[in-house]
Structures are given as C-alpha cells and as structure tokens.
C-alpha cells in the first residue's frame, strides 16, 4: 500500500490535481491536466520519486493509476 500512497502524491503534485480529484479514477487524456505534457511531467516525477527508469513502451502503458502501479512494480520500484 505504501507504493500506492506515494504514487497518489506524485499524481496530485505532477498533474496539479485539485482537491477532491481522485488520482485513482482519472485516465490519460480524459482529464484536462493529464494531457501529453502532463504525462511527461508525471513520468519524470515517478522516475525521480521511485528512482526507476521507465522505458518508452512502458510509458505508453500508463493510462491510469492502476497501470502506473503495475509499471512501477515491473521496473522494480519498492514502496
């Protein structure tokens, strides 16, 4: 759960989500802040927070919070 909690914070900060917006329900390009530019900001923030490298193909997989969790686990991030 720790990884999820930290990732929640990364989502809120990187995508500048307003209070009350649940990172768990937004999807890539379905939320005004999560556009292509927001996506790059999010990826960079995830890499820095978890000290991992996300490849181009994994980066494409991340289209919702759960997908981000899965990619983080795949690349060996720890909570």
């Amino acid at each position, binding site marked *: 759960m720790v990884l999820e909690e930290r990732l929640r914070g990364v989502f809120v900060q990187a995508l500048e989500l307003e209070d009350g917006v649940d990172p768990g329900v937004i999807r890539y390009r379905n939320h005004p802040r999560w556009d*292509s*530019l927001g996506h*790059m900001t999010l990826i960079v923030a995830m*890499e820095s927070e978890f000290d991992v490298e996300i490849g*181009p*193909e994994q*980066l*494409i997989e991340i289209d919702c919070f759960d997908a981000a969790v899965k990619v983080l686990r795949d690349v060996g991030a720890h909570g």
Partner: protein
Amino acid sequence: MTTTLRGGRFTLSQPEREAKLLPELAELTAHHYASCAPYARILAAMDESPRRDYAHCRDLPWLPVRLFKHHTFKSVPDAEVFTTVTSSGTTGDASRIYLDRAAASMQQRALSETLRTVIGSHRLPMLIADSSATVARGGTHSTRGAAILGMMMYGKNHTFLLDADDQVDLPAVRAFLAAHGERPFLVFGFTYLIWSRLHPVLVQEGLDLSQGVLVHTGGWKKLADRAVSAQEFRRGLELCGLRRVHDFYGMAEQIGTVFLQGPDTHDLYCPDFADVIIRDPQTWREAPVGTPGVIEVLSTLPRSYPGHVLLTEDLGVVHGIDDGEWPGKRFSVLGRLPRAEARGCSDAVGTP
C-alpha cells in the same frame, strides 16, 4: 493485432513484406468499407469494392490523401473516438484523423518500435531544436507541437534549444551537453530548424554533438528554397560531429507510421508493417525502380479510419529493392507534386 505490434522493425524482404501485408491490408479495406460510409461511397465512385483476390498490394484501392480535408473518415462510432489528430496546412483545410483508444495506443507503440531501431530501447536525454513555447499548454494543437510531444516520449531531461522568445538558449544547451554529452543522447527537430537554428550554433560555439543521434522530419521544401540539399545538410552536421542522422517521412493521415533513413545513406526505408508504391501520374501504374512518380503509402496501422492505403501529394522515387542497408524498398521523397496545394509542415508524429 500482435503481429502489427511486433512489426516496427526493418527486417522483411520485399516478397516477405508483400506476403504479410497483402492479406492484412485487404482485410482493412473490407473493414473500412463496412464501417465507414464515406469511404465506401468513394470506393464505389471509383468502381471499386473490397475483393478477396488481390494479387498484389499495388492492386488495392487507394484513397487520395487530400480527401481527408473535406471528408470525415471514421470507422469507429463517435462515442469511441478517443483523440483527434489534425494536420494543419498553410492554406487549405486541415485533415482530421480519428483514433479510438486502441488505435491511439497502437500508433504510439508502432512508432516506438520503429524508432527503437535507431535510438535503442532506453529513453535518452533529449535536446529539442525548437522553442519551449511550441509545446506549452494550449500550444499543442499545432502539428509541430504534436510531433514534438510525440517524440518527447522517447526522451528524458528534455532541453529546448530556443527559449519562449525564440532565442537560442545557449546556457541551457551547454548545461545539457555538460550533463549528458558524454553518452548517447537524442536530438530532435524539424529539418529547417535544425539547419537554420541548431547548425549555426554548433558551428559558432564549436559544441561537441558526437554522441548525439539526430532524428528530424518536416521535409526539405524550406531548405530547398535556400538551396540546401540533403547531402549538404548531412555533411554540414557531420562536420560538427553529428554523424548519426535520421530523417523520417510520415504524415498525420497515417499517424504512427514513419519511413526512416538508414544509418549510412540518404535513403528512406519502410518498417515491417508498411510499404510504399511509386505510381506514374499519367497511367497510375507502378513506376519502375529509378523512375519518379507519386508516392502511395501503405500501412496496416489505420483501423479506426481508412488511412491504410493513401495516395500522397508527394513525388518520390524507389532507388532499389532488397539491395540496401535494410531490406525492402529504399526510396527518396523528391518534393511536392507541382499542382498540390501547399500544406505547410503537415508531417506529424502526434500523440496518443
């Protein structure tokens, strides 16, 4: 679908490619005929209907790319349209390309596979020969902005050559090279900006870009107007240490498909899910190797809109088949058809 996802490399000989693409493209023709009424009407007007017995890819009916400016071609219900890519011209109406979620993801993966051939499987530090304003929020509707954002996915530590006022940001470039210049990094930009903005800085400042891999696009028209040839472009950059240079040819109407310059020559090659056919503009028959004609581009990617077989408004020539650095056809783009409407930099990578 999975065969397409694996197909972004440059491995298929022409007979293998023809054998793989023909049934997939024929199936796409039938799919779009059934799913997109305007496409079916245009095929009917050309006295074409999907057949099961195409002998060659060149027998498949094509759609002139300019029709995308005036028709809504969509093979998915409105509710499933996930994103729209616009190809903006300088004068004419824009083409609108409709992607559902699957198509958006597929085009990005295909592009990723294709580019991996030249930039590897890691995201590299990336120097962008453009202005940060081009991708600023709200600026992403431009084709150039969309192309840059699409490419940014393959980079990290993104650094822009130009600041928001369009001035060269030399300190930023120096800092980028100090931090990342010793290991492979990616340089991306539109061809004319590479030449008009990046190249002079390299010459004046003597910057070392020998570890850089340059990927550029956008066509040669603006440089041809300044009498700069592809050879001169490449030579000029080589003198600055930039030896790994890859031009690519692609268009919004076939988003995700890019034809990429091989490692050593100026020729463009087709990824495994795509092909080109050069047609004689008088007879529309396939032109022989070495004879210029109109470029038709074929790709198995477009499933949400009928862009799988397109007749472009570009002139090109095939230089050889299965005799180059990579298998398949090797070709060059020679420019616009004389009577084609000016479209500006309509090449687009786009974003998912």
